[in-house]
C-alpha cells in the first residue's frame, strides 16, 4: 500500500520523539549489522584462500595444519544425523502431546513448558558433563559419535519441542472449532489438518535446532572427543567442525589458516541449511495452488 506509506511520512509532520525513536532503531540495526558483517567478512576473507575441493576431500596432515577436513565433515554429519534422527520424531510427538492432548492453559502443560525452558537455557558444558557421565560411562557407549549425537539431542530437544509447539498452536481457531464441531477423531485431525498446517513451522524448527547443534562445541568435547581420524563406526570417537576450529585455533601453533577455512565451511553449511525452510514454504505454496 504505497499511499499509506506516503501519507504517514509526508502528511503527518514527524515529531521530535518520532525522529529520535527512528534514529535509535536505525542505529541499533546498523551496529548489529556492522558486527555481523565484520565477523562474516573476517571469516570469509581469511578463510577463502584455504577452501578448495581438496580441502573438503583430503585427510588432514600435521594435526590439521595441512591437508583437508574430510574426516571432520564425516564425523559432523554422523553426529548431527544421529541427533536429528532422535530429535525430530520424539520432539514432534512431545509437541503434539503438549499442545493437543493436555488441557489448554492447564497446570501440567505450564509446568512442562517451564521445565523445557529451563533445560533449554542450561549451559552446554553441563550437557557435556551429563552426556559423558550418562552415555559414555553409564551406558558404556564410550567417547563416540553416538554419545555425542545423543548428548546433542538432549540439548536441542527442549528448543525443538517449544518451536514445534508454537507451530502447532498456529492452527487458526476457526479451523480448530470446525474440527470440534465435526467431531473428528484426534488421529484424523492431526493427520489431515493440524500437522499439514504446522508442517512449514516444524521444518523451520528442525533447521533452527540443526543449526544450533552444528555450532555446538563444549558438549561434544566431552562426548565425541577430538580424534582426527576417519570414523569407522558410530562407536568410534571423532571430531566435529566446531571442535576442529577450537583445536586448531587454541592448541595448534600455525593452525589459524585452516581454522579460518574450516570456519568458512561451517558458516556456509549453516547458511545453506538456513535456506531450507524458505524453499519448503515455497514448495508448499506451489502445491496448494497445483493440487
Amino acid at each position, binding site marked *: 500500500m504505497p499511499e499509506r506509506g506516503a501519507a504517514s511520512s509526508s502528511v503527518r509532520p514527524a515529531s521530535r520523539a518520532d525522529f529520535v525513536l527512528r534514529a535509535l532503531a536505525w542505529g541499533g540495526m546498523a551496529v548489529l549489522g556492522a558486527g555481523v558483517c565484520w565477523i562474516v567478512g573476517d571469516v570469509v576473507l581469511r578463510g577463502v584462500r584455504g577452501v578448495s575441493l581438496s580441502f573438503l576431500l583430503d585427510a588432514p596432515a600435521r594435526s590439521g595444519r595441512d591437508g583437508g577436513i574430510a574426516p571432520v565433515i564425516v564425523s559432523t554429519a554422523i553426529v548431527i544425523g544421529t541427533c536429528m534422527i532422535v530429535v525430530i520424531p520424539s520432539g514432534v510427538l512431545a509437541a503434539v502431546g503438549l499442545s493437543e492432548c493436555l*488441557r*489448554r*492453559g492447564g497446570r501440567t502443560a505450564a509446568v512442562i513448558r517451564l521445565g523445557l525452558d529451563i533445560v533449554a537455557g542450561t549451559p552446554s558444558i553441563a550437557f557435556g558433563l551429563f552426556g559423558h557421565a550418562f552415555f559414555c560411562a553409564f551406558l558404556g557407549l564410550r567417547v563416540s559419535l553416538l554419545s555425542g549425537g545423543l548428548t546433542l539431542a538432549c540439548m536441542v530437544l527442549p528448543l525443538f519441542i517449544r518451536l514445534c509447539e508454537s507451530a502447532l498452536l498456529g492452527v*487458526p481457531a*476457526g*479451523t480448530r*472449532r*470446525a*474440527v*470440534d*464441531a*465435526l*467431531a*473428528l*477423531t484426534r488421529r*484424523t485431525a492431526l493427520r*489431515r*489438518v493440524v500437522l*499439514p*498446517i504446522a508442517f512449514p513451522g516444524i521444518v523451520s524448527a528442525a533447521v533452527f535446532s540443526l543449526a544450533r547443534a552444528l555450532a555446538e562445541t563444549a558438549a561434544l568435547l566431552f562426548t565425541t572427543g577430538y580424534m582426527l581420524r576417519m570414523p569407522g563406526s558410530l562407536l568410534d570417537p571423532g571430531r566435529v567442525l566446531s571442535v576442529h576450529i577450537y583445536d586448531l585455533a587454541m592448541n595448534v601453533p600455525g593452525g589459524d589458516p585452516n581454522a579460518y577455512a574450516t570456519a568458512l565451511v561451517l558458516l556456509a553449511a549453516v547458511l545453506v541449511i538456513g535456506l531450507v525452510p524458505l524453499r519448503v514454504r515455497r514448495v508448499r505454496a506451489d502445491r*496448494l*495452488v497445483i*493440487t
Partner: protein
Amino acid sequence: MTSADPDCDTILPWPPMEHTPPCCVAAPHIEVTGLSVSYAGAEALRGVTLTIPRGCVTGIVGPSGCGKSTLLAVLNRMTDAIPACRVQGSVRIDRAEILAPDVDLRSLRRRVGLVFQRPNPLPISIADNILVPLRDHGLGDRRARDARLESVLRDVGLWEEVAHRLRRPATALSGGQQQRLCIARCLALQPEIVLMDEPCSALDPMAAEVIEDLIGGLRHRYTVVLVTHNLAQARRVTDHCAVFWHRPGAPSLIEMGPTRQVFEQPADDLTRLYVGGIRG
C-alpha cells in the same frame, strides 16, 4: 410459512427436498428446560425454557451478548471445550437428555451439525472437506462417499461451480462459496439438526442472499436453528422466532412464537420495541 400441518413429521427423516409438503409442524424436536449457562461465574444465559419444532427454521434473535450463540453452543455441547463454563438445566433432543455426562459427543455432533459465522473450510481440497469427515465417521464405502459428495454439493448449489476443481484447495474459494461448502460439509454427515451461527454476517449481500435461500431449502428436511442479528432475515426465512434480551441481571428469553406473531403482535413490550427497530 407458518401454517401447521400435522403430516410433516411422519415424512422425516430427509426425503428429497421437492417431495416434502410446504409446512413445518409443531412437534417438538429440541426441548430446553431451565437452561442457565455461566462462564467463570458470569451469567451468559438464565432460566431459558423453549421448544424447537421439528423440520422448521427457528430464529434466535436479540442484541449482541444476549446469549444467542451460547444457546447454540449448548445444543451440540461445544460448551464442553470452554474452560470454566457451567451449564445447568435440561436439553432434550427427541426426548433424550444431551447434557448427561455419558452422552457420546461424537454421535451427538454428527446429529447436530454447526455452521459458523465465519466460513471455516479445512485447509485441504474441496472434495476432502466433505470426504475426510465422512471417512472419519466411517460413513459409506468409497462409492457411497463420492455420491454423497456430489449430492451435498448439489444441495448447496456448489456442484456446477466446483465440479471441475474438486481437488483444488477449499481456501481458494470465495467467501460465499466457502460458507456453502461448510454447510455442505455439515449436511454430509446427515445431521437431524443444523445449527447456524449468523452464517451470512461475514458475507457480502449477494452471497448472503444465496445462503439465505439455501436455509429456506433446508426446511422440512432438517430442523434448523438460525442465530441472526438481521431482523429482516429472521422475518424472511424463519418459521418460529425466539427473542433474547439482557434482562436485568442476566441474558434470557423474552418471547418465543411463530415468526409472524412475534413480528406483528408481540406479547412483550421489549420485543415490540426491538422488532420495531426502536431498541436494540
